[in-house]
Each structure stands twice: as structure tokens, then as C-alpha cells.
């Protein structure tokens, strides 16, 4: 598929897009806190691949390469515009009248989104790659071009920051989990 894409085979590239667009989009969305420019940034990463596919020597490195390019583009865009605004995350309007439990669920979601958005960008990228995209520490370290020790350190600090900002929700969950276990 990569070789076909290198020959500017649009059909092969479309197959590649259908395989990798979603994870790239999700990661960029998370990094840009749901900003409206998410699609532009994800597109730009694929355009870079289309323009110069020879940058990838092995097919198995493709996803990591796309994630790295897209995350760098997202960080650049955020630094340039400095509008990391969690309010930009689109809330889907529910036409039904929300019940108390649903409202509470939405509030928790908003707090979790806010906590993730508030993380420093490298911690946020590490948390996004490992927890949301399910990548191994080794793969995530490769995407971020850092050592495995460094990503573990970023994850530890990121989790600590999340625990602090989500203390109430987190404690409730811990009690819930321990009572279930008991």
C-alpha cells in the first residue's frame, strides 16, 4: 500500500487514509482540545505524506510517522494561535430533557475534558497516545522521539496532574471500585 502510494496511486492512498485517518484525527482533536482546525491539521499530515512518501522506509513505521507529524503540526498551530480552549469542544445537544444522572454524567465528562486540556502539551500527548490511542510505551516514545524512560516520566506526571484536578471524581470512583471488590 505504501509502495502504491509512493507511485501516486490515489486508490491505494485512499485505503491508507481510511486506515489511519481516524486515529490521527482523534489524537489531533485531543491535542487541540476539540478546536475547529483539527480537520485542517489532520489533512496537512496526510498531504505531507502524499507529497513525499519516500520519507517512510517501512510500512510498520507509517502510523507512528503520521502521529508524529500530526502532533507536531497541532502543537505548532496551538503555539501560534494560543487558543487552547476547551470550550471549543462541541457539546452534542440532546433534544430530550436531561435527567439528574445524565446532567451529572455530562458534568463529569466536562471536568475530565478540562483536566486533559489543562495538561502541559507533552504530558497531554503522552496520555493521549497511551491511554486514548492504546499505544505501547515503546511506540508512544517513538512517536514523541524520546526514550521509554522519558515517556514513563511524562505519563507519571500526567497521571498525577489528572488525579489532582479530578480529585473528587477520582476518589468517588476509587471508593466505588473498592466497594465492588470488597
Amino acid at each position, binding site marked *: 500500500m505504501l509502495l502504491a502510494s509512493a507511485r501516486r496511486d490515489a486508490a491505494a492512498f485512499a485505503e491508507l487514509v481510511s486506515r489511519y485517518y481516524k486515529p490521527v484525527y482523534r489524537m489531533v482533536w485531543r491535542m487541540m482540545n476539540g478546536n475547529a482546525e483539527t*480537520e485542517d491539521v*489532520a*489533512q496537512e499530515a496526510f498531504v505531507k505524506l502524499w507529497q513525499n512518501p519516500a520519507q517512510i522506509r517501512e510500512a510498520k513505521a507509517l502510523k507512528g510517522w503520521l502521529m508524529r507529524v500530526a502532533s507536531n503540526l497541532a502543537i505548532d498551530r496551538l503555539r501560534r494561535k494560543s487558543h487552547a480552549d476547551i470550550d471549543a469542544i462541541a457539546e452534542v445537544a440532546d433534544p430530550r430533557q436531561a435527567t439528574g444522572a445524565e446532567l451529572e454524567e455530562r458534568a463529569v*465528562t466536562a471536568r*475530565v*475534558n478540562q483536566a486533559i486540556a489543562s495538561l502541559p502539551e507533552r504530558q497531554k500527548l503522552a496520555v493521549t497516545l497511551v491511554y*486514548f490511542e492504546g499505544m505501547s510505551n515503546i511506540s508512544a516514545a517513538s512517536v514523541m522521539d524520546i526514550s521509554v524512560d522519558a515517556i514513563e516520566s511524562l505519563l507519571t506526571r500526567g497521571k498525577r496532574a489528572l*488525579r489532582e484536578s479530578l480529585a473528587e471524581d477520582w476518589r468517588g*470512583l476509587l471508593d466505588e*471500585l473498592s466497594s465492588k471488590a470488597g
Partner: protein
Amino acid sequence: MEKYDETQMDAALEKLLKRATEPSVPEGAEARLMLVLQSVEQQLKVVPFQPRPKIQGWTIGLPLAAALALGIYLGSRDTFDAYFPEAITDGISADMSDSMPSTGLDDAESYAEGDVT
């Protein structure tokens, strides 16, 4: 918090992170990307055209006409004869002073009379 171990705390945090908004790809995003790639491809193939600056005809004709007029004027005044090689200017002046141009008839008569020198 000390009553919970690291594994429990991680499990609780992961469970909490699952409540984060799950981004969904906008409808038609992949199709839009393919369209963008097509336009990029066209840009790569097209050599940018640089239009030649438009030159008005008179901007060339005017200096040429002026040079011609100046040349005729100076030529008629013999102003620059001193600067030309003598081989040119003498020949021209000799031709101009010769009232009877050579027709070759005198030479023909000489040949007819046997004078071949």
C-alpha cells in the same frame, strides 16, 4: 489515599478517562482530504506561468527612430569622419569626387586594340 495501591489508583483514573468526550470524525472528512490531495497533485504538475511584461510598441520604436534620425543628421555633417579609418573615408570621398564613373568601356577598347597590359 494511602489505603489504595498504585494499581487501583491507575484503574480508577483509566475508568475516569473513559468518560472523556470521544471525538468523532466529521462526515465527509476523508473525502475532503482526497480532494485536497488531488489539488495538491495538480499543483505539483503545473509549472507556474510567469507572464512576460507587456512592452508597448512605441517604447522600442521611438529610440530606434531617434537613433536613425541622429545618424542621418551626423552623417550629413561629416562630424565623425575623423574617427573612421582612412580606407573608408578616402574611398568614399574619391567616389564622390569622381564625376565620370567608370563604365568599363575604355578598358574594352584597349582590349580590342590588343593592349592587354
